[in-house]
């Protein structure tokens, strides 16, 4: 296990380095100059040069990568050239909002999607199963931002019962939760559908296994078989998906954060990309990539928890 964790840690470092190299190369390929994008005509050649040099853009890629990683190792993500704010602070303020949003959405999706899936699998081809199928597929196929706009129009504009924008007043937990409801539903909905379908399929598969038949023959109650023996095995592919899902939710959060004007990582990175504010893009993407890797690691560790037969790091997967 320790060897496995060490290997994963090494992989994480490698991924981080690759992401940084890739982003630094991207800067060379993508047209657009930060100073000119931001300042328009007011960006005089001298100022443009100054900004480029402050962003390290005038240095070779390997120097950029080295400088950046060296700083990251010292816990410093850099400074925003235009506002002189520390990027640690910017990310530190934005990250919790996105983590909360992604996590709440995932929790919502799990709490709703899995029971739906189980119910469908337990009663295949019943009317409830069919309705779940229709809704699941509609949820999966409707783009997140469309759901978001509908929710906004219904609950914020028409009914005026939930807030439309922002993350809520600082220090007010109730207000924060109120601001979380619509975005997290919008983000969760397609995952509800996805998880319901996924659980249903894998559960049906498991229910055809011989050990389930054996259990049935032994006269165990259906409920016991379903929840105790079948669901746990059906869970394993879902856990893998959830690991990646958390990463993809962080990506989906970009749209949601822009639509709901939530000050999260999505908005931060989106603005930075549009302005070609490369240090922020680099730091933001690095943090998200890191979380993605960690989420996957946690998912892998969860396998062993759910199925002790799986031994990580021994090539038996």
């Amino acid at each position, binding site marked *: 296990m320790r060897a496995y964790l060490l290997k994963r840690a090494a992989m994480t470092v490698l991924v981080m380095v690759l992401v940084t190299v890739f982003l630094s190369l991207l800067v060379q390929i993508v*047209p*657009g*100059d930060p100073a*000119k*994008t931001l300042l*328009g*005509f007011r*960006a*005089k050649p*001298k*100022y443009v040069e100054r900004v480029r040099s402050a962003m390290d853009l005038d240095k070779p890629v390997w120097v950029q990568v080295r400088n950046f990683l060296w700083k990251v190792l010292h816990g410093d993500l850099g400074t925003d050239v*235009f*506002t*002189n*704010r520390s990027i640690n602070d*910017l990310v530190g*303020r*934005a990250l*919790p*909002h996105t*983590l*909360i949003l992604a*996590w*709440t959405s*995932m*929790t919502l999706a*799990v*709490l709703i999607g899995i029971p739906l899936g189980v119910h469908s699998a337990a009663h295949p081809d019943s009317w409830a199963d069919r309705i779940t199928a229709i809704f699941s597929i509609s949820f999966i196929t409707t783009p997140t931002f469309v759901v978001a*706009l509908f929710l*906004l*129009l219904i609950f*914020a*504009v028409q009914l*005026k019962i939930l*807030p*439309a*924008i*922002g*993350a*809520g*007043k*600082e*220090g*007010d*937990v109730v207000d*924060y*939760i109120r601001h*979380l409801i619509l975005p997290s539903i919008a983000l969760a909905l397609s995952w509800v559908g996805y998880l319901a379908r996924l659980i249903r399929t894998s559960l049906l598969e498991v229910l055809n296994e011989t050990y389930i038949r054996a259990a049935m023959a032994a006269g165990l109650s259906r409920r016991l078989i379903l*929840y*105790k023996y079948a*669901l*746990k095995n059906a869970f394993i592919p879902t856990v893998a998906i959830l690991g990646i899902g958390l990463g993809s939710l962080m990506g989906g959060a970009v749209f949601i954060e*822009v*639509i709901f*004007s939530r000050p999260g990582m999505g908005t931060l990175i*989106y*603005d930075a990309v*549009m*302005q*070609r504010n490369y240090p922020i893009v680099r730091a933001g993407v690095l943090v998200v990539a890191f979380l993605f890797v960690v989420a996957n690691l946690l998912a892998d560790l969860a396998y062993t928890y759910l199925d002790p037969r799986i031994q990580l790091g021994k090539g038996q997967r």
Partner: protein
Amino acid sequence: MKNRKCMSLFLIAIAITLALILPAGCGPTPQPADTPVPPAEEAATEAPAPTEPPSPTDTPEPEAAEPKILIVRLYERIQTLDPAFVVGVYDSQVQNTVLNRLVSYDTGPDPREYELYNDLVESIEPSEDGLEITFKLREGVMWHRGYGELTAEDVKFSYERYLDEELDSPYADDWATLDHVEVIDKYTGKIILSEPFAPLWKTTLPIDSGHIISKKFAEEVGPEGLTNDMVGTGPYVLAKFEPTELVVVKRNPDYFGEQPYYDEIHFIPIDDDKAAEIALEAGEVQFTRISDASIQRFQDNPDYAVSTFPALAYKWIGLNVENPKLEDPNVRQAIRYAVDVDSIVMATYMGAAEREYTMIPPGLTGHWADAPRYERDVEKAKEYLAKAGLESLDLRIDIEDETEYRTWAEILQQNLKEVGINLEVNPLDPGSFWEIGDGDQGKNVELYAISYGMGPDPSWATMWFLCNQVGVWNWNRWCNEEFDSLHQESVTTLDEETRHNIHVEMEKLVDESASFIWITHGTSAFAYAPNVVPAFTPNGDVDFHRFSGE
């Protein structure tokens, strides 16, 4: 037994969610609404002692009335609080509430003309030759947060910063001919210019580069500190500065002028126009800029008030005269006659904006009212093309990938097809688009669609089409020495009528080049709650500190 494991997974999930929410929600201690607190911690500790509010027991609140709060949208997150580095209108809009100038433009709900009023000065007078401007400050104007009294030294510091090569302000041009500011006594001073500078009274003193900042504060925090904190003399004090979330300014009880109507102004950054419109409809902001396409919808709804203004901008289709395909003026004439500008304007703005025929918008010095009005004439276009010895031609137009320019390009494509020109439309993201004209790569530009903003002085528009701007912002790569010298003449001429004539001459040269197809000056449109009484300049710049309510 095993079921408990599943259960515990869910419990852990819920626990993590709460653990995440609680610290974020409770994070920094909330600021009580009625104590002005310096926004940046560093500044708070270093700020010299106190005009900090006395303890609550000393000053019993007269009445615990609800503070009047105006919540407005900023269309991007604010970048800086330093007037010398303003990036967009959203920066100025916040700065305007906290800082003052010597003179400012008057604003109102429905202004017609640009008029200056004395802001920080009791009097201000230029010398006959325009080289010396003597000002006398109001006495007893106090800086926020205990930074003492406003003096002529502050004015000297604020303006001479622009000459500082080390600071390298992108706005140094606003003070192009400033020599120095002479301090005569505590309240009096002289702005000394090396050459007369006509835009000074129009786009320097009354706009961003005319803002006066506290010398003491600026020296204390340095140029970096000024981006994140601001000490002014204005009607509002900066109270909270979280650029990505919320900026709050609160009433300055010691303001020298008339007290503003609102106790607080909250600026919320919302990038997307549609999201901002939803926020307005949901009642979460009271004032926002709206997209041209939404003007009608809000006008039809009695729950909102709408104001529209001819914008201080000029939008055009540019033709690169250095590109081999376009260097023959006949080809450019052919394109100019082939385009149906009226259709472009109608299809794009649906009645919200009018067609333009010149660079300088109406109402400004230098607007050429008698400019030729080119109408679509396919036959004439074909003739010009034949004169150039061509029957057909393949061209490309580079545009920013926005509905507005896509609509232009699609109509243009159809129009040109009829005269035998195949137009390829090349949509680009903003970052890529704004670079196409750079240096030698700008030679490859063929057609492009673009919009430039300007200040209320014609030289703000013409300065981008000088010969030295080829490869910078002059993407037409049209270089005309007469145009250049007329521009220089205009900048140093103080007589308005002479300047007007100079600019009309310049517009004629532009017209002869046949390299600009003017589309519109555009519209600035705002929607707001009906109980808000806004304050605008004639071209729709917003002065939030002069807003009131009903």
